[in-house]
């Protein structure tokens, strides 16, 4: 391991540990986990991530002293010709911000998961998978660290693929469950395939970057791109657009967002950690990391902003029509990611990163809170059926909000923190969400009006669907026996929620208007960014809209709570629109029609025409087999018989002839043999004599 000088002098040299600790944790659990039991497994996994968090904190403290950061070389990785990709870790304010956020939230979610999974594996009927879960979880953290810390496209891509793998593994954690017994597996596959499309874009972008700028290291690529100037404009635009494709895959933007709602099939901590707080933000992080390129490609930036804004609004509308508590949050996540993408598209990287961090707090909180609610309902269902009904059967859906109601009185702590999270998401001051969302809206109002309108509408919808959810879940009377029997969860689950709630409350302090702490902090990496002045108008509009939306929600869902089996009150007035919202605008069906059916038909046609007729019937049978037969026949008749056989036959004939000649020497007469001996003696003596004479 080699360290740069700055790293050797400071704490930066420790940064590889941020990857090493989770790897160590997963290795320990891999080897010993099953033998040592749940408590140990959970402790090891949580401790590994907590130690990584400690390392991240150290890095942050070191950065306070040396804001310029460092590049820590771990190993020479790939050297082929002029291509040289070392495995180096980039320590700067951006990556360390991500590290702090990821490891911090991860630590809390690990602790939560230690409690949650204890129950979950039992409800799902396979306690043995407890260890496997934490191995995957630690693996995810390690991959995420590689993604964040990489100083080149390739190292980032390694992490990118690593987290994709973990996502796939964890979505399909209960692979034998779900619709028809394959629903979860299909969900994992969907996530994987959607991500592949994005990864394809990322790879193309990487190839283009290398072709044009002869490097894969961020720094070098940026330098070369800037040096190339306008000439490289097209190339940079292409690169950034393909990067955007990658980002839409990972960060669930239009058109590749469809996998994220399905990803809710994974256990709730997975939804919270991977599909809300960390992995899905990787696209945002990647765009931020390559902001130099996006600066050079205004067209791409606009596209990014529009894609983000459209996604934010589109996903928000869908969230309104959902009944699954986690699906609502999933579309909310997509929507909020749209906010971030829009922000970075507009060049407001600080705002994007700010929202990324605060969103991580409150969305993780909301997911974990929903998990707490679900667990509570499961417990209730379990208690109501006296332990002999199947708690996870098809008849009862513990995630359906229509089966809940009145949870606020039964799970007070959960209700409290959930309320905080919801308000933060809705953008009610002074909670974290308000500040971060406000900055984005402010930036949009300044630079891009369509984006502003879309985002504002999305913000209104956000407040509405969060109000709808809170009222449906926590207020009113229980609409099922399970909900009626629900009870609060143990502290191991609740305490992380409290911590996250505190962060959601106070997270806005990171980048208060006027202070811009985060902005100054990230300046070292992203360069000075002129933040727009705080606008009372923008803030007021958004706050007013949010309050209005909440009021609306209260009028619809809070004043007269839903009764058992009563349809959604807005379904009737909205009619077909609600159907569209509930069915997610038939996007999946559209994709099915647009891509899948054609793809399957094309595949079938190709299978028949190309594989069967062309390759198998014609190429294999006519060309290969027949050619091989012809070739072997020629070899057999033209080569083997005359040359090989001929040679051995001739050899045998020679041996026979020579042997026949020599046989005459074998007369059987002793005196004859003696003559040969004498002849040999005479010959040898002659030889020696001649040699001595010459």
């Amino acid at each position: 391991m080699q360290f740069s000088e700055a790293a050797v002098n400071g704490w930066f040299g420790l940064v590889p540990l941020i990857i090493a600790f989770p790897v160590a944790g997963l290795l320990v659990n891999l080897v010993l986990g099953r033998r040592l039991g749940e408590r140990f497994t959970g402790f090891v996994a949580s401790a590994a991530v907590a130690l990584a968090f400690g390392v991240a904190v150290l890095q942050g403290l070191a950065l306070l002293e040396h804001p310029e950061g460092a590049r820590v070389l771990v190993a020479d990785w790939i050297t082929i010709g002029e291509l040289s990709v070392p495995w180096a870790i980039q320590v700067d304010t951006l990556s360390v911000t991500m590290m702090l956020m990821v490891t911090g939230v991860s630590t809390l979610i690990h602790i939560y998961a230690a409690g949650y999974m204890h129950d979950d594996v039992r409800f799902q009927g396979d306690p043995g998978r407890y260890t496997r879960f934490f191995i995957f979880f630690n693996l995810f953290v390690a991959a995420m660290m590689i993604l964040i810390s990489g100083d080149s496209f390739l190292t980032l891509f390694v992490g990118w693929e690593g987290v994709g793998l973990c996502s796939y593994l964890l979505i399909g954690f209960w692979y034998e469950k779900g619709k028809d017994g394959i629903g979860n597996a299909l969900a994992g596959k969907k996530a994987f395939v959607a991500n592949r499309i994005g990864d394809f874009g990322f790879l193309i972008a990487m190839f283009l970057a290398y072709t044009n700028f002869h490097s894969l290291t961020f720094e070098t690529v940026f330098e070369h791109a800037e040096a190339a100037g306008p000439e490289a404009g097209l190339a940079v635009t292409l690169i950034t657009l393909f990067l955007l494709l990658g980002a839409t895959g990972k960060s669930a933007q239009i058109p590749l967002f469809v996998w994220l709602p399905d990803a809710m099939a994974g256990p709730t901590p997975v939804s919270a950690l991977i599909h809300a707080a960390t992995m899905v933000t990787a696209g945002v992080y990647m765009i931020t990391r390559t902001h130099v390129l996006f600066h050079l490609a205004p067209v791409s930036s606009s596209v990014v902003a529009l894609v983000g804004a459209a996604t934010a609004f589109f996903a928000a509308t869908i969230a309104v029509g959902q009944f699954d508590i986690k699906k609502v949050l999933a579309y909310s996540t997509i929507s909020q990611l749209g906010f971030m993408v829009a922000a970075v598209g507009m060049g407001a990287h600080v705002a994007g990163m700010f929202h990324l961090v605060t969103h991580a707090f409150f969305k993780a909180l909301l997911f974990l809170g929903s998990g707490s609610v679900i667990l509570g309902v499961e417990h209730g269902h379990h208690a109501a059926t006296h332990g002999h009904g199947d708690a996870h059967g098809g008849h009862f859906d513990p995630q359906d909000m229509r089966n809940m109601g009145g949870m606020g009185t039964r799970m007070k702590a959960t209700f409290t923190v959930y309320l905080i999270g919801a308000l933060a998401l809705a953008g009610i001051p002074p909670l974290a969400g308000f500040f971060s969302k406000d900055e984005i809206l402010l930036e949009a109002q300044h630079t891009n009006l369509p984006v502003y309108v879309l985002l504002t509408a999305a913000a209104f919808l956000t407040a509405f669907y969060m109000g709808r959810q809170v009222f449906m879940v926590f207020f009113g009377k229980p609409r099922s026996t399970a909900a009626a029997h629900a009870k609060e969860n143990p502290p191991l689950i609740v305490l992380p929620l409290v911590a996250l709630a505190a962060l959601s409350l106070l997270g806005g302090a990171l980048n208060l208007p006027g202070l811009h702490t985060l902005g100054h902090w990230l300046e070292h990496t992203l360069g000075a960014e002129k933040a727009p002045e705080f606008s009372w108008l923008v803030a007021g509009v958004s706050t007013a809209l949010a309050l209005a939306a909440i009021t609306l929600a209260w009028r619809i869902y809070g004043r007269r709570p839903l009764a058992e089996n009563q349809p959604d009150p807005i379904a009737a007035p909205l009619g077909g629109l609600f159907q569209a919202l509930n069915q997610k605008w038939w996007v999946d069906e559209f994709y099915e029609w647009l891509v899948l059916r054609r793809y399957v038909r094309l595949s079938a046609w190709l299978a028949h025409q190309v594989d069967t007729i062309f390759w198998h019937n014609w190429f294999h049978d006519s060309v290969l087999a027949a050619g091989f037969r012809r070739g072997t026949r020629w070899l057999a008749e033209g080569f083997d018989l005359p040359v090989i056989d001929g040679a051995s036959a001739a050899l045998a004939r020679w041996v026979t002839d020579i042997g026949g000649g020599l046989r005459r020497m074998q007369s059987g007469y002793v005196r004859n043999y003696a003559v040969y001996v004498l002849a040999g003696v005479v010959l040898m003596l002659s030889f020696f004599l001649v040699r001595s004479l010459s």
Partner: protein
Amino acid sequence: MTPDLILFLALALLAVATAVAMLASRSAVYSALFLVLNLVTVAILYLLLNAAFIAMVQVTVYAGAIMVLFLFVIMLLGSQQAAVGPDLPWQRTVSLVLGAALVALMGYVLLAGSRGTLLTATALLEGFGSPQSVGRVLFSEYMVPFEAVSTLLLAAMVGAIVLTRDERTEGR
């Protein structure tokens, strides 16, 4: 031509003549007798070459025992006449040519260049070739070979007895 040379040449001539006669004789008994003569001639040469002990051993063992044995067998078998029957056509010619070539080669080597030590040019040690001198070397340096040869003789004796034993007259 010194008297020594004449003596040597005479003995050499006798030796060669007896050897040739041995080969040429049609009767095996004559062959044996010529060989005895040859051996005695060589024994005399041994005497002249200061190898008195070996000369006596030669006469005693070779002429007196081995050749008697030969004669004994020849007479016992009654096959003193040379075997009749078709001879190999070229065997005799080739053998004679090769033999001549061998003699020519060795003769050239021995007589063309240096003639070697003149045998009287070096003063002889006292008692060279006497039974004492030979015995002293034989029973010191060559003790092991001597014992080996004695074993060999014993084995040969046993072998000869076993080979020629007539089992029909056994136990008489």
